[in-house]
């Protein structure tokens, strides 16, 4: 874009570009509205799934820090045997901390959690049925299931328990959300690009006479194409702004509701994270618009 004719863009040209772009938008109003609509829908899906993923990840992280494995020992395991098992557990590289919980400690803990009603446990004092156990933490939440399976194989360990599959489920959910939204987003983006390309094609067709005159007068390719590029970008941008509006308002009201009815769940509300999600929506909107017009102009606007 270093040609003399391009650098000397004056106010007239800029006014001209915008006027032409908007005239076309109005002329193809039905197609324009459909293009904007599909851009909006795909960007809402993008925004919603990004929000879902960041929230699921945050939840996984908070669960992660509290998830631990409990390995119950067999009745007849003595002190020597216990140390051997402990060393065996330490050998697993995923394990970060090990804590021994004796059966007496376990009963005490249980009483504590029962609080005032601990009297119902009185009768257990003499014949404590609880087993000795190790409480084990892993370095990451993902490592929990595999570590648990490895621990089960150690001699002297009766049973292994961990967060009832919470971590697995959560990670599974984010995986599926990601996959599903990538596929839907991909398809919708394609449809949006196609629809915008069609809109631009109609505009080019409606103004082919004018385009012919511009070429005769020595207009650069760039000058002829710019209003159409602008039209596509305006379509994408409008779709993006509408989607932002929907996602932002939707998320705000969701946060309000969660605060009231599920106060223990903390939704992501860091403005930096949310702004970058909204920003990527706008960015994709503009990209879709520009890509659509570019395809159309490449095919239908040769000098």
């Amino acid at each position, binding site marked *: 874009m270093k*040609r*003399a*004719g*391009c*650098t*000397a*863009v*004056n*106010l*007239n*040209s800029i006014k*001209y570009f915008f006027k032409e772009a908007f005239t076309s938008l109005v002329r193809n109003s039905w197609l324009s509205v459909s293009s904007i609509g599909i851009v909006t829908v795909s960007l809402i899906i993008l925004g919603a799934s990004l929000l879902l993923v960041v929230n699921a990840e945050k939840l996984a992280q908070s669960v992660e820090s509290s998830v631990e494995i409990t390995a119950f020992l067999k009745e007849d395991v003595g002190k020597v045997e216990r140390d051997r098992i402990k060393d065996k557990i330490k050998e697993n590289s995923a394990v970060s901390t090990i804590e021994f919980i004796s059966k007496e400690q376990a009963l005490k803990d249980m009483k504590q959690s029962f609080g005032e009603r601990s009297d119902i446990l009185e009768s257990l004092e003499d014949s404590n049925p609880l087993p000795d156990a190790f409480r084990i933490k892993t370095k990451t939440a993902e490592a929990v299931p595999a570590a648990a399976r490895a621990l089960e194989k150690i001699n002297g360990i009766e049973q292994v328990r961990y967060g009832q599959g919470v971590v697995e489920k959560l990670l599974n959910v984010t995986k599926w959300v990601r996959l599903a939204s990538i596929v839907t987003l991909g398809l919708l983006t394609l449809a949006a690009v196609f629809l915008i390309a069609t809109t631009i094609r109609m505009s080019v067709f409606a103004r082919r*006479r*004018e385009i*012919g*005159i*511009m*070429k*005769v*007068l*020595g*207009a*650069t*390719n760039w*000058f002829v194409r710019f209003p159409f590029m602008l039209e596509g970008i305006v379509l994408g941008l409008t779709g993006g702004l509408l989607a932002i509006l929907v996602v932002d308002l939707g998320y705000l009201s969701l946060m309000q509701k969660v605060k009231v009815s599920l106060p223990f769940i903390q939704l992501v509300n860091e403005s930096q994270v949310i702004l970058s999600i909204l920003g990527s929506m706008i960015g994709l909107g503009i990209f879709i618009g520009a890509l659509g017009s570019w395809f159309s102009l490449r095919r239908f606007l040769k*000098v």
Partner: protein
Amino acid sequence: MIQLYNVSKVYENGVKAVSDLSLHIKKGEFAFLVGPSGAGKSTLIKLIFREELPTRGQVMFNGKNILRMKPREVPHLRRKIGMVFQDFRLLPQKTAAENVAFALEITGTSSREIKRLVPAVLEQVGLKDKGDLLPAQMSGGEQQRVGIARAIVNNPLIIIADEPTGNLDPDTSWEIMNLFQDINRRGTTILMVTHASDIVNTMKKRVIALQNGGIVRDEESGVYRREP
């Protein structure tokens, strides 16, 4: 200024519009291009304007081989050529002045220059007070004057006109011809396709006669006649 060397043009559908044609047009000349319908006159113009590429041969414009031009140089070639058409090709939603200004906007002329040049050129073509009219509000002759104003406002080296009086009555045609002659006297080369025999015969300019895509006659102060 324009040189064609052994130029042939075969369209994609197999029609041979121009065959082995060589032609020189010098700076400052006024030349008529005549010949029956389908002789290849418009095709020849399109080859000079680089709207069509020749199948064979070379085309030079102002010392440059236009076939070796990069696509981005083409607009700059076209700015040196002022085109005038039989159907005027004005933008219907723009006034006379805006149509002329549009040619300047496209070349990136500043607003101040546009404000200065447009009234001057409108006055030159005799439309001093008609700048605010839309094409639909003007007569054919007036519309063609706007077309001419638009063609000369960027100071081209040559005006190429394809049957500029084809839609005009004889009196108006003469007014337009006088305007072209006036422009030619100021130094601009003119190449004009026409079927108007009385104009060609009266003006006594160079006449290039085409038939079946080839030049059958090329003479100074020539006349219009049916070729044998």
